[in-house]
């Protein structure tokens, strides 16, 4: 059940003087079970691209299908397909609106038309999943939580819809390193334990290189590169620079050490990989 984009072009404000083409002929298949990282500088079109994945935007040309169903169709089937793709926007805590945490998380499942028991079960599961104790937090106001907790409630609100695909736009923006790690541990669990296909838009190359199985580099409304993250970071450093994106700090370090004549493995992803590679050099 892949998401398939078939020569998708999107133009903002078509027919007005403000007309601007944001995406140009993108063809792409997102398979179930993948963990896809999407990078690109601000204005590259990556936000426009991900909004096509759950039908928030419909292509001006071409089509997006989930499991063969065109998301732009007006059928009940198409609506259900759109709900298979969950979307967590940047600063998702800004969408909270209910008096209690439980009610807010229940908003999505309620819109799906589920039974009362099923809704309650999903709220419990979702809260459990993001590490908020149901008994303690269910009836509290979401607005008295810390920033990191609010964000987890907002993510729980999307997770409770049990999407098969989950798109996250900069889920760690504004969090400190500890908060960032918590969020990513949850996303990783969602991917591993529940088999959710994750599409992560991020500026943080380190997170992408550690988690993603596939990387898409978007530039000027097109897919510039598509492949394994470490391959792209190793081989296309200059192309990335031209597209206005960085390589992860670890890759920067290994590249620099190689430049200095130290043949450290450039396939290193974590600090431990680098250490191991340096130590093996020294032993020789």
């Amino acid at each position, binding site marked *: 059940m892949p998401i398939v984009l078939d020569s998708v072009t999107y133009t*903002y404000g078509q027919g*007005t003087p403000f007309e601007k083409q944001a995406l140009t002929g993108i063809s792409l298949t997102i398979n179930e079970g993948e963990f896809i990282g999407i990078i690109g500088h601000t204005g590259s079109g990556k936000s426009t691209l991900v*909004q096509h994945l759950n039908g*928030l935007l419909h292509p001006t040309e071409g089509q997006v299908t989930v499991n063969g169903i065109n998301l732009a169709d007006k059928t009940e089937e198409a609506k259900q397909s759109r*709900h298979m793709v969950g979307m967590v*926007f940047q600063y998702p805590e*800004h*969408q909270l609106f209910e008096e209690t945490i439980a009610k807010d998380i229940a*908003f999505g499942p309620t819109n799906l038309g589920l039974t009362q028991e099923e809704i309650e079960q999903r709220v419990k599961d979702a809260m459990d999943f993001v590490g908020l104790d149901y008994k303690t937090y269910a009836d509290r106001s979401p607005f008295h939580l810390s920033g990191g907790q609010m964000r987890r409630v907002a993510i729980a609100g999307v997770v409770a*819809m049990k999407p098969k695909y989950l798109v996250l736009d900069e889920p760690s923006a504004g969090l400190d390193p500890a908060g960032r790690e918590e969020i990513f541990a949850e996303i990783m669990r969602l991917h591993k334990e529940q088999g959710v296909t994750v599409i992560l838009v991020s500026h943080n190359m380190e997170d992408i290189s550690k988690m993603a199985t596939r990387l898409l580099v978007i530039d000027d409304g097109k897919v510039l590169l598509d492949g394994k993250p470490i391959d792209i970071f190793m081989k296309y450093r200059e192309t990335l620079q031209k597209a206005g994106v960085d390589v992860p700090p670890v890759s920067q370090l290994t590249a620099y050490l190689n430049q200095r004549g130290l043949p450290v493995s450039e396939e290193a992803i974590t600090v431990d990989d680098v250490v191991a590679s340096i130590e093996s050099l020294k032993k020789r």
Partner: protein
Amino acid sequence: MLGNITIGQYFPGDSLLHRMDPRTKILATLIYIVAIFFAQTVVSYLFVTAFTVWVIWMSKLPVRLLWNALKPLWIIIVFTLAIHVFTSTGTVLWQWSFIHITKEGLQMGVLMTARLVYLILFSSLLTYTTSPIRLTDGIERLLRPFQRLGVPSHELAMMMTIALRFIPTLLEETDRIMKAQESRGADFTTGSLVKRAKSMVPLLVPLFISAFRRADDLAVAMEARCYRGGEGRTRMKELCYTRLDTVSMSILILVVLIILVMRFYAV
């Protein structure tokens, strides 16, 4: 959709109109709009049209900008035209069942529509050629004599400045929250009126919270930049009347006089 609203947006330029003092422009716009209502005959309308076109030409603004200003209001414009055309009594030109068009109605309709169009065009000319801050400055200065009567002119101007600054930001925010809630299955477009009103709650609550948070942040930021009300404040761009303003105002008064004379003699 929300990004296309251009009313009240400044279009930088260096025309004579751009260089005029905002006070002159505000007063002139008000006077001219009132004066248009005194124009009644076809000849006087031709005169008004000629003057309007001349002023637009002087502003050196792209014509599409003014077209954009009219576009969102086309329903009102068409409605005005229709009401006059279809409801006036007089010499019947064309009739079908209960619908009839009269000569008087057609005349009135065209004149009233023209009046409305000129009104919109002139006020957009004002906002296109005057930066929002100069506009609020102008209003503040014009209201200053009323300060003694309790009109808080500085505070009003500050409120307008901040509103102008934050309207685009809040529109973007509205768009984002709508999309976020739509992703959670919210439906803003179908259902009964009551259902639709209810569906606005998930949009309005976050929007209000965000607006209050922004207001809080902004108040702190303004305080940090030594803001303490209007007293003792100076301005980078001082307002000063120049010969340009005197000349412009004289031309306008001449135009108004001509319109009045035409009305008096029913030319």
